[in-house]
């Protein structure tokens, strides 16, 4: 493996791992706080991608503005869905899973009806263009910037959850909703907050990767699925577990893809998941309830 290839694989690993973590974080927060299994979570990623395509590529808005706009819209949509559809099924994993499948089908078909089943290209913003040379290896500036933003968001979320009052409330509600409401926390509001953060993070991931890959109605399928693999591998409810699992999967995909092909890399991911679950049925850092 040449240096160039190694560095490229490294960058790709961190990129896909980071994007996965961004999507999976929201998923695990929502699952932890509301016990809602949201199979439609990948669709927020897809909608984020379409947002950036619509506002930035089609209507020529400034990239940052387009990102903020689409992310906010998806966040509001997420809260609306939480309030309207998931709320009655809080603490009730199976029905919420079914509801989320329904939402997934509707979203995917609706975007397909509106924008067609084709890939839409999003141009790279000017500021992201170009290459950077580091000790003989060329790195795409775009990917580096996306990685930096992703890492900043993950750290920001971690700090938010660990050190702010709202973060404390989120952890308290996911630990014991009844006791949390006795401390004056509103489970309704915390749930909506969790859904907002989750859908915003997924949408951000969609916006950031839009210019790197293509935007299409089915783009949420694979990351949505992989995000589940990440949270299950890491252990549901564990933020650290999610980060570790996301990086593991990112590295398997990043380093496996070039020498063996993407399919073999995916096989590896699933094999790692199954073997881990056989020995640790609650994932790497998950712990049994009670």
């Amino acid at each position, binding site marked *: 493996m040449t240096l160039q290839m190694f560095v490229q694989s490294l960058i790709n690993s961190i990129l896909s791992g980071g994007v996965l973590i961004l999507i999976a974080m929201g998923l695990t927060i929502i*699952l932890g706080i509301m016990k809602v*299994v949201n199979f439609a979570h990948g669709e927020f990623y897809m909608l984020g991608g379409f947002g950036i395509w619509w506002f930035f590529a089609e209507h020529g808005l400034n990239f940052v503005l387009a990102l903020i706009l689409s992310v906010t819209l998806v966040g509001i949509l997420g809260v609306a869905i939480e309030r309207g*559809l998931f709320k*009655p*099924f809080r603490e009730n*994993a*199976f*029905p919420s*899973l*079914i*509801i989320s*499948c*329904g*939402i*997934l*089908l*509707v979203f*995917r*078909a*609706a975007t*397909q*009806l509106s924008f067609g089943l084709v890939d839409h290209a999003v141009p790279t913003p000017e500021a992201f263009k170009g290459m950077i040379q580091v000790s003989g290896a060329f790195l795409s500036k775009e990917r580096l910037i996306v990685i930096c933003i992703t890492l900043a968001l993950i750290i920001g979320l971690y700090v938010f959850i660990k050190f702010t009052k709202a973060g404390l409330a989120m952890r308290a509600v996911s630990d014991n909703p009844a006791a949390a409401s006795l401390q004056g926390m509103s489970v309704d509001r915390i749930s909506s907050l969790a859904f907002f953060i989750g859908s915003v993070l997924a949408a951000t991931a969609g916006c950031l990767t839009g210019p790197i890959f293509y935007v299409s109605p089915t783009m949420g399928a694979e990351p949505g*699925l992989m995000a*589940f*693999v990440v949270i*299950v591998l890491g252990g*549901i409810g564990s933020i650290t577990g999610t980060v570790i699992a996301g990086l593991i999967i990112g590295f398997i995909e990043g380093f496996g893809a070039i020498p063996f092909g993407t*399919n*073999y890399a*995916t*096989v590896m991911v*699933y*094999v790692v*998941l*199954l073997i881990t*679950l*056989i020995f640790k*049925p*609650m*994932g790497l850092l998950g712990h049994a309830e009670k």
Partner: protein
Amino acid sequence: MLKNRRLTPNMVLLVIAILLILFPMLSGNKYYLRTITTLAIAIVLTSGFRLIALTGQLSIAQAAFMGVGAYCSTLLIMNLGWNSWICFFLAGFAAALTAGIVGFITLRIKEIYFAIATLALNELFRLIWVEWDTLFGGPAGIVNIPSPDPILGIHFGSVVSFYYIAVLLLFSATAMMLRIERSRIGLIFSSIREFDTLAASLGVNLIWEKVKAFMIACFFAGMAGALYAHLQHFISPVDFTLMDSVMFLLYGVIGGLESVWGPAVGCTVMIFIPVGLRLIPNYNPVIEPIIFGGILILVMRFCPGGLVGLFQKLVSDLKKTESQKGEQEHAAA
């Protein structure tokens, strides 16, 4: 007065059976025959899913086990020239055996973890079929799968003959499910679901019981797969995807997982709705998922017991009002 109007489930079953047997003689419409054949396969798969769900496990890999059966029988017939009827059963056994091995390892995993593990399993099988192209034909699949061998001079190959095989498979699978439902195993299964630890403390070997349910379900899935291969004369990895496995789950939920009849009702409704919709001129099938998703959300919101649950509720409400009426008449007299 009430008695002679009452239909027992067995009578309903008999009527449906007779109708299904007579149907090809009443209507020669090949399209409907094929649709019912596919429907029968879907019901077999969904009932299997339900059987596993009775033990409290959510398997999102049923399509993969159908694929195991399909590939197994196809390869034995086409590469080794074995008799297709033997292969038909071997397909079931192969799927059940795979399920046994896989289940013994993975059924210790619970809840969402198990669901995701099976989901990974389905993808794993699909990727194996895609990548191991020397054996499984890769993404292009296997073409020119022959019709089943003739028995006693009867040839199988027409749409009608597949129809009858599918109906037979459906009957045997349903009979099996009914037997399980009404037997001790059925009780054990549901006790596992209700009280996992309690059942364990009563000495029920949980893993073995779960593996049993898993194997029975996958046995029928495998046979359905073999039938599917003959029916289409062509199989490829896209026939047995994750999305198909999810569909069996969703069909079951729409029909209602509490009842043995749920899968049949759910599959019938959800497979015939598109058939009906396609009669509309200028119809765009892209909206089908929207309708399907909408139905799912509505069912979960307003009748979580599925259509069968809804029906049972209506019937019991009706009975209540009727008996009230009867009492009033009594009082009046």
